[in-house]
């Protein structure tokens, strides 16, 4: 049967996959995709708590709405930054953006 621990374990695995994408990919769009998966894992956590730890509460649903907003905002600003960088550098590879490295 499904329990809170199982849902949290699946969310942890999804978070790890997203983190692998953020750390291991060189293209900025792929990094954004990794962040989307990590936020998806956070949403799954909230749904798990809502179902198994606090079934009669509605604040958790609101948190999921805020997280969905965050995903949309993160994608919009991320794409805008990628477009801006691409205009100046003609690349979206994060390895090429080393101006601030020591």
């Amino acid at each position, binding site marked *: 049967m499904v329990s809170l621990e199982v849902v949290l374990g699946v969310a*942890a695995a999804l978070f790890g996959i997203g983190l692998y994408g953020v*750390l291991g990919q060189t*293209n900025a*769009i792929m990094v954004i995709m990794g962040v989307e998966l990590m936020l998806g894992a956070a949403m799954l956590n909230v749904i798990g708590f809502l*179902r198994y730890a606090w079934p*009669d509460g509605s604040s958790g*649903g*609101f948190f999921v709405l805020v997280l969905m907003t965050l995903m949309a*905002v993160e994608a919009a600003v991320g*794409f805008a930054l990628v477009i801006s960088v691409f205009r100046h550098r003609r690349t979206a590879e994060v390895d090429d953006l080393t101006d601030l490295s020591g």
Partner: protein
Amino acid sequence: MSDLGTALAFYPLAALMLVTGLYVFITSSMARAGLLLLAALGVEGLIFLALASEFLGFLQLLMMSGEMVIMVFFMVMFMSDPGGLMGMDMTHEKRRSAGVAIALAAGLALVAVLTDWPARVAGDDAPDVRAIGFEVMGRSMVSFLFAAMTILFAMVGGVMLAKQGGRFGIAAPAGEERGEGD
């Protein structure tokens, strides 16, 4: 949905979500990666449905389908090898990234298992649209308005960032300096 029904829906969907999520970063075609991400987050919406969050599940399906299709366009525009036919590798530090990700996921899972969570009887119909509506229009209204303003600012800021020339107008051609009258 009964406990057995929830389990029968949850486990295959969770496996499908993790596999499609992992293949996002394994496939060499960027168009496929975008569609796989859409599949992963769409399946997550189905998991929400299986866990009795119908409203949020359908909202997730709706939002992610729109967002990920837009993302596929961006990927095809910005990838040097969108079709994956040239065999380009767009990864770095693969082993260390995988090591860090696995260690963190295992740590989080360990915390989830070892923590003594409050034992509550699972509700069958938590939370419904009505409850979320009262929450949004009640004590969380200020937060919800803040989220709406955040979206508005992100839209305006995104357009300003992405437009030709950025915030400072169209740049002078290379080698030329602009005077005061420009």
